[in-house]
């Protein structure tokens, strides 16, 4: 059987997700044995439009990127959104909260007219995405599990329970007990609660689960006296591309905001 042909593409991002693929050093020779890499600008010179699976990292922030993405979609049998920028636009969406012209002027001054930009958007706003590998960056163990599933012809499944579940299994002290806000209560697991394990709070870089327990989440936020503005700040870090990160109308509560987060 011919090896599946694999390609990697990068749009607006730090390229840390494709780097995490390269960081699978112990498995790298097996990956190279199982797939034929036909297009990967960061690692090889020869590039082809012939590929079965396209791994695409990065958010879309320029008109020219839309056309490139559509071309990749038409070439690939399967398009995988690799990481938070491709999945939710990631941190890039933080700039959407300011006028684009202001962003350009702040960086390039009176030469702003030389360059273009548009609000950051996830891939799925422009093309059909077959599969998402979430996270900032992706989780290597999850990437390897998905690769195995694809080779076996199985459809990979993402966990649909919150980060809290994995965090408890790792016996971490709850971040709320350390006096911090943490989105692990509604964020999608699969990272093995990486950040809380290494002393950081969860910022939902993997997006939210399908049915977050928003009442329980609201109770936790109330119990710790966390303001709405603070919660919005947290959501904007990685989930700022949709309505949830906008300030709600006068009497809206945190609960409705979390419900909207589902989209």
């Amino acid at each position, binding site marked *: 059987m011919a090896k599946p042909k694999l390609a990697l593409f990068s749009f607006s991002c*730090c390229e840390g997700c494709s*780097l995490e693929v*390269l960081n699978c050093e112990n498995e790298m020779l097996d990956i190279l044995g199982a797939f034929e890499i036909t297009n990967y600008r960061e690692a*090889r*010179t020869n590039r082809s439009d012939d590929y079965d699976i396209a791994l695409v990292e990065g958010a879309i922030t320029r008109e020219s990127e839309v056309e490139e993405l559509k071309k990749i979609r038409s070439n690939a049998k399967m398009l995988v959104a690799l990481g938070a920028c491709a999945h939710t636009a990631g941190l890039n969406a933080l700039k959407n909260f*300011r006028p684009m012209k202001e962003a350009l002027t702040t960086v390039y001054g009176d030469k702003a007219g030389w360059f273009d930009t548009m609000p950051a958007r996830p891939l799925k706003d422009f093309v059909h995405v077959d599969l998402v590998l979430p996270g900032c960056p992706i989780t290597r163990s999850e990437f390897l599990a998905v690769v195995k599933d694809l080779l076996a012809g199985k459809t990979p499944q993402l966990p649909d329970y919150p980060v809290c579940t994995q965090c408890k299994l790792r016996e971490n002290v709850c971040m709320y007990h350390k006096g911090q806000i943490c989105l692990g209560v509604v964020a999608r697991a699969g990272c093995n609660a990486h950040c809380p394990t290494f002393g950081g709070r969860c910022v939902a870089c993997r997006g939210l689960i399908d049915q977050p327990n928003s009442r329980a989440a609201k109770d936790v936020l109330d119990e710790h006296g966390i303001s709405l503005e603070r919660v919005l700040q947290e959501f904007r870090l990685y989930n700022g591309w949709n309505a949830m990160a906008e300030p709600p109308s006068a009497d809206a509560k945190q609960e409705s905001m979390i419900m909207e987060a589902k989209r």
Partner: protein
Amino acid sequence: MSKTMEIDVHHVTRVEGHGNIRVRASDGVVEECELQIVESPRFFESMVRGRMWFDIPHITCRICGICSIGHTTAACLAIENAFGLKLSPQDQLLRRLLFDGEILTSHILHVYFLAAPDLAGADSVIPLASSHPEVVKRALRMKRLANELCEILVGRHTHPVGMVPGGFVHVPKKEELVAVKAKLEGMKDDLLATVETIKALAGAIPAFERETEYVALVDKKDFPWFWGQVGSSDAPAVNWPNYRDIVHEKVVRHSTSKHVSNKRDSYQVGALARVNLNYNLLCDLAKQAGAAMGYAKAPVFNPYFINVAQVMETAHCWADAIATIDKLLAMDIKLSPPQVAPRAGVGVGVAEVPRGILFHEYEFDDKGVCQRANLVIPTGQNLANIDADMRALVPQIIGEPKDAIQLKLEMLVRAYDPCISCSVHLLDVDWV
């Protein structure tokens, strides 16, 4: 020789990010020769404005997946300087060890996976996996260990978690440090074999010299990574807050990343600049490695020798990592998360990240909300110098076949290890 030629490399490969090389020559005269930076700008300045101080390293480290520990370090230093925070001796050592891990990871990746295929006449490391399996396995082994060092300290090399302004919110277990030290000691053979590999390929390094200004941190005693003063081969060293005495930025049309210069039209930063300015502070092993690969005496003006300087620094950081672990093991390692009281002010942080000197500057209000940011990225500082190198190189080689010229230009760009994602994330600039 009269020659009309056009070279247009769309998206140079084996570099981080998107850049094009454009050369046009007519009747043997070079009319156009530049590295165009077409990476999408991401506007980190807009992203950090209005965010709390503790989010700043988290956001700006995501400028770049390869240098995220370097960005985290520079951001933490800037915030510490703004708020007047001091690290404990233990946390200083942890940060130093982490930085060794950052340099090792990045240099091993660049030398083996991005630069070496050119010297071996391959299009990537992939065919080398079958033609030179021992070399590729060695590279993967070394890279895994460098990553492991970062992982026990802060969870991950790409976007670290455990290091924050003022110190650490996670510390390694003693047994983890002991285990990683043993593996590092076992890496010495691989390190020496790396020197031999580069030495064997050194014949393929183009002979091209162009003296330029070299800018890096300088110090009297200790090869500087995030300490010392901002130094230059052409100008007196300055303290961090005065970095703009050396760093002058301007916007150019063919690049979404700004160009930077000082005394001349351009300057160089990175491994070769550091080694040229601080050669005497390298450990003996690094100097011996340099001599074996053709870097016998500072300074060296061949930009393709950046890769050689990277191997010298790999040796230096390898030895420093082992020495630093010994110092940590002599202590009782304790987790003491920093207590931070924000105050209004400006802070500058400087770090010698793998690709060169990096500046982070932030202004905060009295509650610790970020009001303004300015980042100056190594690749941005190198761009004008890469253009100048290409303009000097092309007339020297214009008699060669087009493919050979193109390869030498691509190798030149790759030698600088440009991190284009980084370079377009330049933030606020002063329009004087």
